């Protein structure tokens, strides 16, 4: 097991190097460079001024020199400074990461608390009214785009839920209760879709397990219905659900952009969005590298979780 984890961690190095090259080139391939975005359309500088600006932004050297220069410093923990704000990239990212992580964590918790019981209930009472209702709600939750749901929630809250904080974020370290007041609505808007996905996965997974021979055997042995479901069925039904949660957890961290925009949360999604708009190369590169790292680590965590849930899985 320890060896397996070590191996996975070593695999991280080529993955991160590969991603760093791809993102470095991709962001520079997009039409429009940082100097043009900086100058905008209201001013037309002379060629000399453009050269001077390129030098100021550090993009006057050949590409491979820029890359090696950057990656060398990243290896030493220096992600450079934002071209637009002159603030250190790493500080900016670390300041935003907790907001996105909190939103992802709350939404995931919300989705698990809502989706898993609903899925189980639906499966156990297959083809009942409860099942029909939760499936309909599930389909709706899947089909509604989160930006639209978020807008509706805001419209509603601006009239009837004025105790909550709308588009005025307070950090968790400043005040937990005020922070939660600001996070309730984004959590619902973001978590509802995921709850629907989870509910459908749990339902089909539980249904599949309930049809297995060993469940029939367990029942035939005369075990109580409760024991059959909690000890035999659910534990086996959980493995595919963990896979889904793992994939979505990575996605949640990177997919908060829309919700952060609508609810004006100062998270990493927005930081990334504006960095891309403005072609702020070091910032985009830094964010992509760190999100990649987080994504890979979360996947590793999921693989380890499998072992805990299902003793049949071993990594030797």
């Amino acid at each position: 097991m320890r060896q397996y984890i070590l191996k996975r961690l070593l695999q991280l190095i080529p993955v991160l190097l590969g991603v760093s090259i791809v993102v470095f080139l991709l962001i520079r391939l997009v039409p429009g460079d940082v100097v043009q975005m900086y100058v905008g359309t209201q001013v037309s500088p002379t060629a000399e001024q453009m050269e001077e600006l390129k030098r100021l932004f550090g993009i006057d050297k050949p590409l491979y020199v820029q890359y090696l220069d950057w990656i060398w410093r990243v290896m030493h923990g220096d992600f450079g400074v934002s071209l637009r704000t002159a603030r250190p990239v790493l500080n900016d990212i670390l300041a935003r990461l907790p907001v996105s992580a909190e939103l992802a964590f709350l939404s995931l918790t919300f989705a698990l608390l809502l989706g898993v019981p609903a899925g189980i209930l639906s499966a156990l009472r297959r083809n009942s009214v409860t099942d029909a209702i939760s499936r309909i709600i599930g389909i709706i939750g899947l089909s509604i785009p989160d930006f639209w749901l978020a807008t509706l929630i805001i419209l509603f809250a601006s009239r009837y839920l004025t105790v909550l904080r709308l588009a005025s974020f307070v950090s968790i370290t400043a005040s937990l209760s005020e922070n939660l007041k600001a996070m309730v609505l984004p959590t619902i808007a973001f978590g509802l879709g995921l709850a629907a996905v989870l509910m459908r996965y749990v339902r089909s997974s539980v249904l599949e397990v309930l049809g297995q021979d060993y469940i029939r055997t367990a029942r035939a042995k005369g075990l109580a219905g409760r024991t059959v479901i909690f000890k035999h069925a659910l534990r086996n039904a959980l493995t595919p659900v963990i896979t889904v949660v793992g994939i979505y957890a990575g996605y949640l961290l990177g997919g908060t952009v829309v919700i952060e925009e609508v609810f004006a949360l100062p998270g990493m999604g927005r930081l990334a969005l504006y960095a891309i708009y403005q072609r702020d190369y070091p910032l985009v590169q830094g964010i992509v590298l760190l999100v990649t790292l987080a994504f890979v680590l979360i996947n590793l965590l999921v693989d380890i979780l499998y072992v805990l849930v299902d003793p049949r899985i071993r990594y030797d």
Partner: protein
Amino acid sequence: MKTAKSLAGVLILVLILSVSWSGQVGAAPARGGNLTIGVDQEAVGLDPNLVTAFSSVARVGLMYNRLVRYDNDLDIIPDLAESWEIPDNLTYTFHLRKGVKFHDGAELTSEDVKFTLDRILDPKTGSPALSYLAPVKKVEAPSRYEVTIRLKEPMASLLSVLASDNLSVVPKHAVEKQGNLQRVVVGTGPFKLADYVPDNYMKLVRNPNYFKPGEPYLDSVTFKVIPEQMSLLAAVRSRNLDMAAISEGGIIVQARRDSGLSVEQVPSLNARTFGFNVTRAPFNDERVRQAVALALDREQIIAAAEFGFGQPTGPVPASAKKWALPVSAFPSYERNIARAKQLLAEAGLPNGFAFSILCAASYEGGLPVAQVIQSQLKQIGVTANLEVVEWGAYIDRWVKRDYQGIVELRGGGADPDRFLYRMLHSTGSVNNFLFKNAQVDELLEKGRSAVDYKTRKNVYDAAQKLIVEKAPVIFLYVGNENAAMQKYVKGFNVMPNGALYYLEETWLDK
């Protein structure tokens, strides 16, 4: 008896009116309190001489001062300069206010003004304002409170240039110590930077040493960045914000329906334009451009793209009232399909033609405007294909002049020299239509070198008519600058250039 009764009634009415009247006007501004204002974009850097993003410029304008500034009628008024003289059209002498203090306590002197202008003029600084100051030869500081600017060639819009927030005066000692002021604020303005968490909030507090006695009234101003227009309005409605600057017409419609809020709107200085690369066929033929101009209906465009909030404009933004001509002065503003078709036939295109319009989905990129133009041009047999690109790609194509037609939002200046010379003189720095016309050049040069208002007005009247006739770019309309606020917010004026200067006079009546 009856008359006495009605007389008494009138008296009571007068009494009531006078009481409520005095309540409205006579109430002295109350001091104190915090005002939270929502804006849709985060500032990008804070060095007034370096920033280009409008969001940065608006905030810098509260923390620094310029030599002169605009008021909300777009007249130049004193700011750091108490008075000035223009002995000839190459020399400008400014007398500074005495005792103005930077936020760190140091006194502002002519050395700081000279340092600021020299800093902008140095290409190594990379200031976007450098091109505004191209005709400046030399800046002198003959005494502690006197600054003289000498020009190589006349530029009548120098005062207008100096009123730009990009020319805010920075302290020499702080720049020399810090390198630049992108992250620290050492200004002379009504507010000081207290706390800044990017993409969340920026808190400014009252500058107790501000040179206008008693101002600002507010203890603090807090900026909140809320990118979504809908969320901005929702936050005002739920009183999470005291006011918000709103740009989308549809949201303004909703805000105006809300009786609990007050909405202030003024015509903007930014002009919506539809321009051509006049070196590319078929728009190298001025008859084709005129035909397109005749096929457009500006009111329809305003109704569809701006929810009716805007007014048609000529080459000088309609909001710059001192210089703008009424649109009735331009014959081609009356839609005339028959004449347009005739012009196309004369140009050898009796069956119309197809071309593409470059636009972007952002507000500046004007996609809805391009859509209306597309449908209006169908009536003269012209097929417009829309090329909707991402903003970065749009700027890239703009810089390379790589388009046939383009929808733009042109940041207007209150002085026609500043706006038109750069855009339409054959050597203009943002003449990306590649338009060259000797007569237009001559008029723009005349308007630049004359100082007297009457002479200049005549020159620009002629220039505007000629530009509309040659149609290298079709001036469509100016939109509105809007603010939605709580009723207790008093003393704030929305400015045509979107500046927030009036926050220094704003107070809370609650």
